[in-house]
Structures are given as structure tokens and as C-alpha cells.
């Protein structure tokens, strides 16, 4: 029988689907019986989903032009 602590130790692998079938079944049995761990698994899953879905904002124009200028200088100095 898994304890909540055992469950939490495996949580990342469970959410990344990196556990074997047998362990996965045990973990799923645990969350079906433990509302707290179900909430933790569900909200951690959402945390990961929200961060993964975050598109980077385009870099500011001034940062972009300084980058391109530095690159141009580099390319002029050392043609590949």
C-alpha cells in the first residue's frame, strides 16, 4: 500500500508518464482513494501545462537591434 509520501516521490515521473505499468496502476489506485493526493496531482499537472503553454514574448526592438549589430560586427570580423 502506497503512502502519500511514496506517491509524492513518484509524482514527477507519473505526470511525465515515465513510470512502468505496475507502478502507474499503484499510483492511480492511491489517487482514487486519496482526495488530497488527487488534488496535488491535478494541480501540479495544470501547473506544468500552463508553463509549457507560455509563448515567449518577442524581444524588445532595442535589444533586437543591438543583437543584430553585434552579430554583424562579428560576421564582418570573422567570415566563416
Amino acid at each position, binding site marked *: 500500500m502506497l503512502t*502519500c*509520501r511514496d506517491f*509524492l*516521490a513518484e*509524482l*514527477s*515521473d507519473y*505526470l511525465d508518464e515515465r513510470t512502468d505499468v505496475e507502478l502507474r496502476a499503484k499510483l492511480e489506485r492511491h489517487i482514487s482513494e486519496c482526495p*488530497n493526493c488527487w*488534488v*496535488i496531482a*491535478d*494541480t*501540479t499537472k*495544470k*501547473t*506544468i501545462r*500552463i*508553463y*509549457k503553454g*507560455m509563448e*515567449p*514574448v*518577442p*524581444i524588445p526592438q532595442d*535589444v*533586437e537591434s*543591438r*543583437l*543584430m549589430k*553585434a*552579430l*554583424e560586427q*562579428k*560576421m564582418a570580423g*570573422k*567570415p*566563416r
Partner: protein
Amino acid sequence: MMKAAVMTVSSQAGFDETSLVTQAREGDNLAFAGLVKRYEAKIFRLAQHITQNREDAEDVLQETFLKAYEHLDQFQGNSKFYTWVVRIAVNQALMKLRRRKADRSVSLDEDIDTGEDTVTREVAAWDEDPEQRFSREELGEILNSSVDSLAPAYRSVFVLRDVEDLSTEETAEALNISVPAVKSRLLRARLQLREKLTRYFKRKGDDTFAYL
């Protein structure tokens, strides 16, 4: 001259990374500029997360692509070009971070396991899509400030694994730490973030209940 060309390249957003890399290695500067355009926003975000300083992040952004250009012949081609660039950026960013915080210790390499940080204190259910309660700007602010409040050792692992989508192995390599270290830091980072975000995302009217 290059600027106009860069714009042309950036319009070919779907262009295959491998072909651009091959062309860049053969001396095609336009192809290299295309790779820069493709990844600059992600590298800048990564640098900001690690250094937590805009000026340093801009330096890291420039140094990363200049180094990548200079050492392109050393790129082996057995990892993705993006992963290789991320590795350069992480190194540059960590150097900045260490230099800036020289008087305080930056515990990226040391064991920060207290044994207690997987204990969860706040458990409350969230709505199905809790992020939709916030505007794009508000959400960005919430997500960034939450990540930035993590300890550097957790933050860097989380950003590489769950924001930049590197594998556990690639993250270990980029940070020069072991795979088990990535795994344990990732778990703690995820749990800590979950808890921080609960403040914003918990279902309205739900009482938090104590746990463990």
C-alpha cells in the same frame, strides 16, 4: 544589408532547422541569422529567468549567439542546435549570476535537500482552466514572479525542463548536474510552484485544508 536579409529569413519560419544549420556551417551568414531569429526570444527569456536581471540577460543573449557563431564548427550535430545554444546560454547566465552574487552563495551545485520540502501545506482544487481568469499580461506576471521566487537551483531546472522543454538528460548536461539531481529538484520546483499558484488559481469558495 544583413537586416533586410534577416527579415527575409524570418519570414521562412517553418524552414527546417537542420538545413539552416548545415548552410550556416558552410558559411552562410543569412542561415545563421535565421537561426538567431528563431531562438532569440526563448534565449532571452531563459537568460532573464536565470539571471533575474535585464541587463545581464541582454549580455547573455548577445554572448550566446556570438559564441555559437564563433564555435559553430564545434557543434557536433548529435544534439539539436537549439539544445546546444541553450547549453551555451545557461553557462553564460550562470557565470553572470555567480559574478553578481559573489558575496552570497548561489547554491546550484550543492545539495539543498532539506528533506522537508516535498511536504505540502496547502491543498485546494483548481478550476479546469484557471489561467483563463487572467489577462495574458497578468498571467505572464504571475507565472514569471512565481518562477523567479524559487531558489536558483530549482528555478534553473524547472525553466529548462518545463518552460524550454528540454529532456531530463539534456537538463542534467546543460547544468552539469546528475540526472537524479534534476529529478529531485524538478519535483520540488513543481510542488513549490503549484503551491504558489494555488493562491491565484484555487476554485472560488473552496476552503484550503491542511495536509500531512
